[in-house]
């Protein structure tokens, strides 16, 4: 009835009978999250910290085995930092900056991510997904202990949904049999093969790529490679059409072989056959295979992420190729975007229309991710003879000439989405203000004399004044914006000025709960600020 579809890395939420199963009538809860993966638990952290009661239902009792997502971007770590679990991820993760690109037996070029100074978090860390999820669940347990209204139920599988105008009725299967519950909002975080999407018969449109990839996570014995990303186009060891080697914590290395479409999965998954590929690549090296898997992928998205009281986030809403680490990283940006909006709507502080802007802003993000990952895929796995010829011409030239290197695409690594043109954007009237902090941008971190800027922003609205007169907090329509006064007098590196003032002498920024810029001005104007808070919460400026 409730058979496990995969084995667990960590059993963190074993089945316990809930009082809801013994209630006379179905119990109604504000939010049910379907799926306890990184996106579902991420959203539970966001809502739980706001005091919004949330129930996470997962059909397993913990975190699935296998590293799957391994590359977590700065923006994801900053979101996790806001939820209180960014630091353990950074401590455990592997920080890397150097990448090398090979074609056949030649090194084409190498690149250094050259991280910008003055950020709490690096551009990327490599970390096995089960660790990422474990740190999230540990933070969820800590919040529960402090009274946050989060409930996670293992071996609770949603088998049917009935979507009403203003709530959803759920049939839930457990080891003790079925029960019924109701939710004002149901959030589908149940992954690329979303059962919820299927139950609601919603379309998932896009391209399927005819290729498969064999992943092997291996643990080196008496051997090591540098902490670098190595990518081969047409590797000389013949183990696939492309190969990626990347380091993870615990001396584990991710090897990813592109093995073609027409493969016998069962044969390829035999340890002896995986070892043949690995031995051809690594030579006479001892290793242990920790985990392996074959995957295919598609670049697809739902037409709309919101369907009345049902909202989709993460891979259930949009799926991308793994090139560029845009899966889990974009899902965390969904959570970041949805959490505060849903919280304000549930508390009656913002209209329902605010949730439509989740679809507007994150569809923009999904399109950007799909475009980038499709282009990377087309470069890595050329679809025609001429495309293959151009690809190899780029690689040949890149070895000798710098101009061709930006054309080499082995994955454009995830960068956060700027919500240009969003209906929530207010005035952008900071004369000489830098482009990177224009309205719609996620706030870039900067060093302060007592820590980092990023840790001072978010959760609620913030009025950040830089070298401007300090202001009091402002309450507008039930929403309080808190002041944060900072000064470039305590900015020895000049990073704050460069990132937030540019040519301006002073600035006033209105910053959203998800740390995106809502509006910015040269100086404080209370009426304009109040209007911008209304705009940013879908109430209209007037």
């Amino acid at each position, binding site marked *: 009835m409730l058979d496990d579809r995969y084995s667990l890395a960590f059993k963190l939420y074993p089945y316990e009978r809930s009082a809801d199963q013994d209630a006379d009538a179905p119990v109604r809860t504000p939010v049910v999250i379907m799926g306890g993966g990184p996106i579902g638990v991420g959203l539970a952290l966001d809502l739980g910290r706001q005091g919004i009661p949330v129930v996470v239902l997962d059909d397993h009792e913990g975190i699935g085995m296998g590293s799957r997502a391994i590359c977590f971007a700065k923006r994801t770590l900053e979101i996790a930092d806001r939820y209180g679990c960014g630091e353990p991820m950074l401590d455990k993760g592997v920080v890397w900056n150097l990448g090398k690109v090979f074609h056949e037996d030649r090194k084409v070029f190498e690149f250094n991510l050259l991280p910008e100074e003055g950020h709490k978090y690096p551009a990327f860390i490599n970390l096995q997904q089960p660790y990422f999820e474990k740190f999230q669940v540990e933070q969820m347990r800590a919040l529960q202990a402090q009274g946050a209204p989060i409930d996670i139920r293992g071996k609770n599988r949603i088998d049917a949904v009935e979507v009403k105008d203003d709530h959803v009725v759920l049939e839930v299967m457990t080891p003790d049999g079925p029960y019924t519950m109701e939710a004002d909002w149901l959030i589908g975080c149940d992954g690329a093969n979303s059962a919820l999407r299927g139950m609601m018969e919603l379309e998932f449109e896009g391209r399927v790529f005819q290729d498969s990839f064999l992943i092997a996570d291996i643990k080196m014995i008496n051997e090591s490679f540098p902490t670098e990303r190595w990518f081969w186009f047409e590797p000389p060891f013949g183990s696939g059409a492309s190969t990626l080697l990347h380091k993870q914590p615990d001396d584990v290395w991710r090897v990813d072989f592109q093995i073609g479409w027409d493969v016998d999965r069962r044969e390829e998954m035999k340890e002896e056959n995986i070892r043949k590929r690995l031995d051809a690549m690594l030579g006479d090296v001892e290793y242990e295979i920790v985990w392996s898997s074959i995957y295919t992928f598609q670049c697809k998205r739902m037409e709309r992420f919101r369907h009345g009281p049902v909202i989709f986030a993460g891979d259930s809403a949009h799926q991308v190729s793994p090139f560029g680490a845009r899966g889990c990283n974009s899902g965390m940006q969904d959570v970041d975007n949805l959490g505060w909006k849903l919280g304000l709507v549930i508390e009656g502080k913002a209209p329902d229309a605010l949730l439509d802007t989740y679809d507007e802003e994150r569809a923009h993000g999904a399109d950007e991710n799909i475009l*980038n990952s499709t*282009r990377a895929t*087309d*470069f890595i796995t050329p679809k*025609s*003879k*001429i*495309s293959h010829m*151009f690809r190899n011409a*780029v690689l*040949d*030239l890149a070895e*000798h*000439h*710098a*101009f061709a*290197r*930006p*054309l080499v*695409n082995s994955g*454009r690594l995830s960068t956060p989405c700027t919500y240009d043109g969003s209906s929530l954007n207010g005035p952008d009237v900071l004369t000489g203000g830098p482009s990177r902090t224009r309205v719609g941008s996620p706030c870039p971190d900067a060093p302060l004399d007592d820590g980092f800027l990023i840790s001072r922003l978010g959760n609620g609205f913030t009025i950040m004044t830089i070298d401007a007169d300090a202001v009091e907090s402002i309450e507008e329509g039930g929403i309080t914006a808190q002041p944060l006064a900072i000064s470039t007098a305590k900015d020895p590196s000049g990073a704050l000025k460069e990132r937030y003032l540019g040519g301006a002498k002073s600035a006033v920024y209105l910053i959203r709960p998800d740390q995106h810029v809502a509006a910015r001005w040269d100086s404080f104007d209370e009426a304009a600020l109040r209007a911008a808070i209304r705009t940013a919460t879908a109430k209209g400026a007037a």
Partner: protein
Amino acid sequence: MSLKTDPNIPDPDGFYAELIDAHEGLSDDGSHALNARLVLLLANHIGDRDVLSDALKAATLNR
């Protein structure tokens, strides 16, 4: 003026995608012909004989 070999194309990924898309549906001969026309158009646009000679040398990978 000498041949530019530093990055000079804005939006390199977008340009590359447009280049590959231009070949969509063409036979091998059709693609060769398109490439030939493209080289001639770009060569005329460049117009500098020395630069064109340098480009030809670079394209042969200095063999």
